[in-house]
């Protein structure tokens, strides 16, 4: 069994008020355009004026979230491990569009240079002068989870104290929204994003974006929550999903009743309803079932926002009312299970423990 990964700090720039010192998720943000964009921040705190002028929104929000996370933890990273489903899509769109309109001549270098998936990691390494292990996982909806898995393996192998900056980031663009809309990703009806989960009988979801970073360590320090277990599943059916949850509980010496909160990545898509219900239905009324994709939208690394929220819930022992879907509100939150499905049908389970 893997050792626990302690969450020493978490920072998230999302479509909600998740960054900085203000009250969590207040005021609530919503949209009826079928997609959610992040609440923009003052990015000049961590990025020089010379560098910032070339950066896309994704780069700015990811670098800022990553640097803030390290500042909150008060550590230098021993590794930088991230996941992104699509990387800098807007830079890629600029570059490809220029290639077509300018017939592959006189192309701007900046868009090309920064459209690579690992440009966020590169910038973070430059900013922190970290020349150690640096990896970006690009595996669609499981990118963030695979970054966490790599962090877990790295910490398991370490003989000394290690602090890893792990994160996930993706951006939404109008063009991407149109393209994915053509293959049925999004709801056809216009809805308020906060009411997404009340529209679970129609196909599709809403798009989103965000950057979430965590300092994960094998040293408990002042951590108030830890990732106890992590599992990824390739396009599981209902039975396979339930078996995987039972297996994870058993491996950690738990039964369903021990779980205080189930944080579901349910996304309001009728096609995925059965799978999500299979995960959350196993816990009866004993656990509080919560959800988050009506707050951040669905995107490849949306589970990063989920983990940020899970960490907040466990470390502050407080469940935001807007996330609660069913069950009684747990008073003491010791065990939280994240159950997520990606739009393409893969799934992940993340078990969080409180650190008392």
């Amino acid at each position, binding site marked *: 069994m893997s050792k626990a990964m302690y969450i020493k700090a978490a920072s998230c720039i999302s479509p909600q008020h998740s960054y900085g010192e203000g009250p969590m998720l207040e005021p609530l943000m919503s949209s009826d355009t079928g997609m959610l964009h992040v609440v923009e921040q003052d990015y000049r705190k961590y990025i020089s*004026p*010379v560098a*910032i*002028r*070339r950066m896309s929104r994704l780069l700015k929000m990811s670098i800022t979230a990553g640097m803030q996370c390290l500042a909150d933890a008060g550590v230098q990273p021993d590794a930088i491990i991230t996941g992104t489903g699509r990387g800098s899509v807007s830079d890629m769109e600029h570059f490809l569009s220029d290639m077509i309109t*300018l017939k592959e*001549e*006189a*192309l*701007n*270098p*900046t868009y090309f*240079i920064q459209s690579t998936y690992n440009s966020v990691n590169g910038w973070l390494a430059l900013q922190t002068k970290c020349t150690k292990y640096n990896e970006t996982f690009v595996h669609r909806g499981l990118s963030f989870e695979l970054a966490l898995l790599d962090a877990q393996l790295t910490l398991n192998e370490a003989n000394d104290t290690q602090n890893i900056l792990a994160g996930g980031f993706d951006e939404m663009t109008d063009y991407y929204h149109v393209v994915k809309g053509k293959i049925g990703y999004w709801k056809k009806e216009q809805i308020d994003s906060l009411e997404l989960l009340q529209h679970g009988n129609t196909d599709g979801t809403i798009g989103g974006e965000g950057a979430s970073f965590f300092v994960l360590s094998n040293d408990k320090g002042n951590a108030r929550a830890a990732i106890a277990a992590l599992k990824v599943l390739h396009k599981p059916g209902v039975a396979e999903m339930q078996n995987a949850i039972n297996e994870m509980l058993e491996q950690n010496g738990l039964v369903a009743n021990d779980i205080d909160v189930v944080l579901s990545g349910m996304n309001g898509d009728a096609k995925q309803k059965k799978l999500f219900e299979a995960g959350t239905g196993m816990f009866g009324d004993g656990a509080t079932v919560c959800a988050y994709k009506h707050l951040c939208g669905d995107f490849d690394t949306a589970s990063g926002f989920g983990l940020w929220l899970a960490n907040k819930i466990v470390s502050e022992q407080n469940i935001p009312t807007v996330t609660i879907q069913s069950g009684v509100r747990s008073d003491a939150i010791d065990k939280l299970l994240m159950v997520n499905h990606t739009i393409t049908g893969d799934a992940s389970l993340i078990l969080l423990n409180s650190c008392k």
Partner: protein
Amino acid sequence: MEDFKVTLKQQIIDSLNLQGMKPADIDDNAPLFGEGLGLDSIDSLELMVLLERNYGIKIEDAREGRKVLTSVQSMADYIEQHRKI
């Protein structure tokens, strides 16, 4: 020529996304790289692209490129002599 230099400065500002800067803030003879505007090597590539896209000028020789991109004045002089668009 003066009007053209203002146009060129605005093109440089747009191309390099020099936020908060106006044409009047750029001195005609101040060095573009290092002490003056403080541009870097990626900016030099962007300026080469600007010359090609807007004026049809392709500079193949790096030494010649360095001379042309010394200042706004040197760019304007070179464009006036070599422009194809």
